[in-house]
């Protein structure tokens, strides 16, 4: 079942382990999931999930290190040579994303010990963790695999488990939200698989690298166009690009806090990765872009998403829903960078993938603290939070500043690159609209700030437990650290952007 990437030496188990890291990245959480089901006890399941998440994080870091030192890694499952076998390919684009997913998982699991105990009935805990691990498997698999149909399989694994995770929320609206997400998500995934099918019909291969090589000569422009269309629409549904974002606000608002935090940071980002992978790597040498202004179309939709979603966020009473709309807006920012398709623009979009994950992950985790102490996080209930739960409120302020893009936080770095990219293209209006989007964020973030600090607390509440606060504050600290010293994140982002643009003709 395991492939071999080099000669096997039984006397050096670590070498063997290291050479199988790409497979282990996916297999570890996959095997841990049924283990959770067998263990049946919530506590033990949590422990298994913790170990698996830490292992995933460590593996991702190891892979990133190798990619930065040696270049892309190619791993063949079952030793079947590509393009007939399934290949796992780790390169400058997906290695950082693997680290991001691993990091978010590693932080979310310790956080969830108290949060899950509070929000989900005891007898369902082990099922929650099993589903969590399946979701993790799916996300990691999508990111690491180099086979198009494998992408679909892992995407559906992650999506199905996501629907379950969301449905486990306390509020009964979580069920409806999960159902809506299921319908829309399945439509999206089916579009994706139609697109992949059309690609297969035109080129005869499913391996990403091979597709990229063959598509230039295939000469079947209509089929390629159709494939691109289906893929783009399907992926836009998954990444909640306006106007296909309707599932997101309810899904994130009513999901359990840890699920919302984890998904907000990872699920849509993986879809962005897929769009980049297909758009640049696979279709890079196709002539389909000559008459198709895909970049402009994405820009328009992204911009609409930023402005509409930010405005919608301003009027929300439920703060989780507010931040969910904010996520749609931030995804719009990411897609602005993608749509501009210049080195600066792509770097901005990619670094915002990371930066938004930090900020939103922190925000949802802190809102989970509020849920723990106060119940559903409406603005009414959160009055006076600065007094009753000072650390939680302070963290929310910093995360909010990051969403605004205040200098000194990660959001500023992304905004800088996006505005710079717009100016480089000479698109004044776009730069101004990006800044307008930031200003709209000021309005809804400040609604939260005013509620927390200017009103008296209605119900007495203690500060959240340390385990939850520490995990959330790690992310908050990350928001500030990577905003002041962005060399790591920008280095990875620009390397990724470069590798994408090289694939274009």
């Amino acid at each position, binding site marked *: 079942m395991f492939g071999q990437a080099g000669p096997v030496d039984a006397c050096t188990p670590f070498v063997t382990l290291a050479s199988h890291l790409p497979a282990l990245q996916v297999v570890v959480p996959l095997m841990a999931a049924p283990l959770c089901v067998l263990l049946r006890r919530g506590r033990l399941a949590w422990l298994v999930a913790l170990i698996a998440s830490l292992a995933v994080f460590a593996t991702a870091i190891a892979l990133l290190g190798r990619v930065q030192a040696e270049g892309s890694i190619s791993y063949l499952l079952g030793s079947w040579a590509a393009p007939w076998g399934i290949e796992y390919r780790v390169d400058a684009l997906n290695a950082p994303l693997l680290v991001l997913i691993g990091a978010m998982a590693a932080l979310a699991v310790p956080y969830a010990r108290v949060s899950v105990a509070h929000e989900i009935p005891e007898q369902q805990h082990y099922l929650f963790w099993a589903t969590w691990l399946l979701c993790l498997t799916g996300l990691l698999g999508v990111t690491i695999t180099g086979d198009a*149909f494998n992408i*679909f*399989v892992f995407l*559906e694994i992650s999506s*199905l488990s996501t*629907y*379950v995770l969301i*449905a486990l929320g306390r*509020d*009964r*609206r979580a*069920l*409806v939200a*999960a*159902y809506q997400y*299921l*319908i829309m998500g*399945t*439509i999206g*995934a*089916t579009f994706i*698989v*139609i697109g992949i*099918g*059309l690609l*297969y*019909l035109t080129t005869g291969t499913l391996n990403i690298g091979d597709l990229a090589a063959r598509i230039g000569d295939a000469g079947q422009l209509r089929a390629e166009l159709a494939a691109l269309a289906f893929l783009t629409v399907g992926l836009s549904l998954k990444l909640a690009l306006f106007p296909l974002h309707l599932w997101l606000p309810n899904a994130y608002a009513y999901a359990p806090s840890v699920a919302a935090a984890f998904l907000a940071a990872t699920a849509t980002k993986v879809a962005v990765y897929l769009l980049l992978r297909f758009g640049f790597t696979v279709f890079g040498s196709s002539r389909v872009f000559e008459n198709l202004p895909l970049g402009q179309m994405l820009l328009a939709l992204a911009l609409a998403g930023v402005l509409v979603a930010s405005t919608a966020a301003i009027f929300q*009473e*439920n703060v989780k829903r507010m931040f969910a709309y904010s996520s749609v807006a931030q995804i719009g920012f990411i897609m602005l960078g993608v749509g501009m398709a210049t080195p600066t623009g792509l770097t901005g979009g990619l670094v915002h993938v990371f930066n938004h994950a930090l900020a939103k992950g922190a925000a949802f985790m802190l809102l989970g603290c509020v849920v723990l102490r106060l119940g*559903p996080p*409406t603005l*009414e209930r959160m009055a006076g939070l600065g007094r009753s739960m000072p650390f939680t409120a302070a963290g929310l302020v910093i995360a909010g500043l990051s969403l605004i893009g205040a200098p000194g936080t990660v959001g500023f770095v992304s905004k800088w690159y996006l505005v710079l990219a717009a100016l480089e293209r000479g698109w004044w209006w776009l730069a101004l609209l990006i800044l307008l989007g930031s200003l709209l964020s000021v309005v809804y973030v400040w609604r939260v700030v005013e509620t927390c600090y200017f009103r008296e607390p209605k119900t007495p509440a203690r500060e959240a437990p340390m385990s939850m606060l520490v995990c959330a504050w790690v992310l908050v600290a990350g928001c500030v650290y990577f905003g002041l010293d962005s060399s790591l994140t920008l280095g990875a982002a620009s390397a990724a952007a470069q590798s994408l643009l090289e694939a274009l003709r």
Partner: protein
Amino acid sequence: MNLLGNVNYWMAMFLLVMGLYIVIARGNLVKKLIGLGIFQTSVYLIYISPGKIFGGTAPIIAEGFRTYSNPLPHVLILTAIVVGVATLALGLALVVRIHEAYGTIEEDELQLQDIDAP
């Protein structure tokens, strides 16, 4: 000639559009799932029907045969069918739970019930 030659694709598109229409137009949650299933069936046709190569035989290596039909789409679609079944099962489970929580599985009634909640 093209019409008849591409009849498999026409069928697939018909199923696709029909399935999507049912999902959008019907308010009953179970009917939506049925529409989703029909929609997914179109995918199966898109993959499998081109797999049959004209003049090809079953993909088992045997003496005297040079052209074989493509077995790969079948493999892929088996996976897709499994995914579809899992999705349907999950969807139906959600419908059961929604019915327990709300007492109805009609979309408009669900929206009415939730309209006042914060």
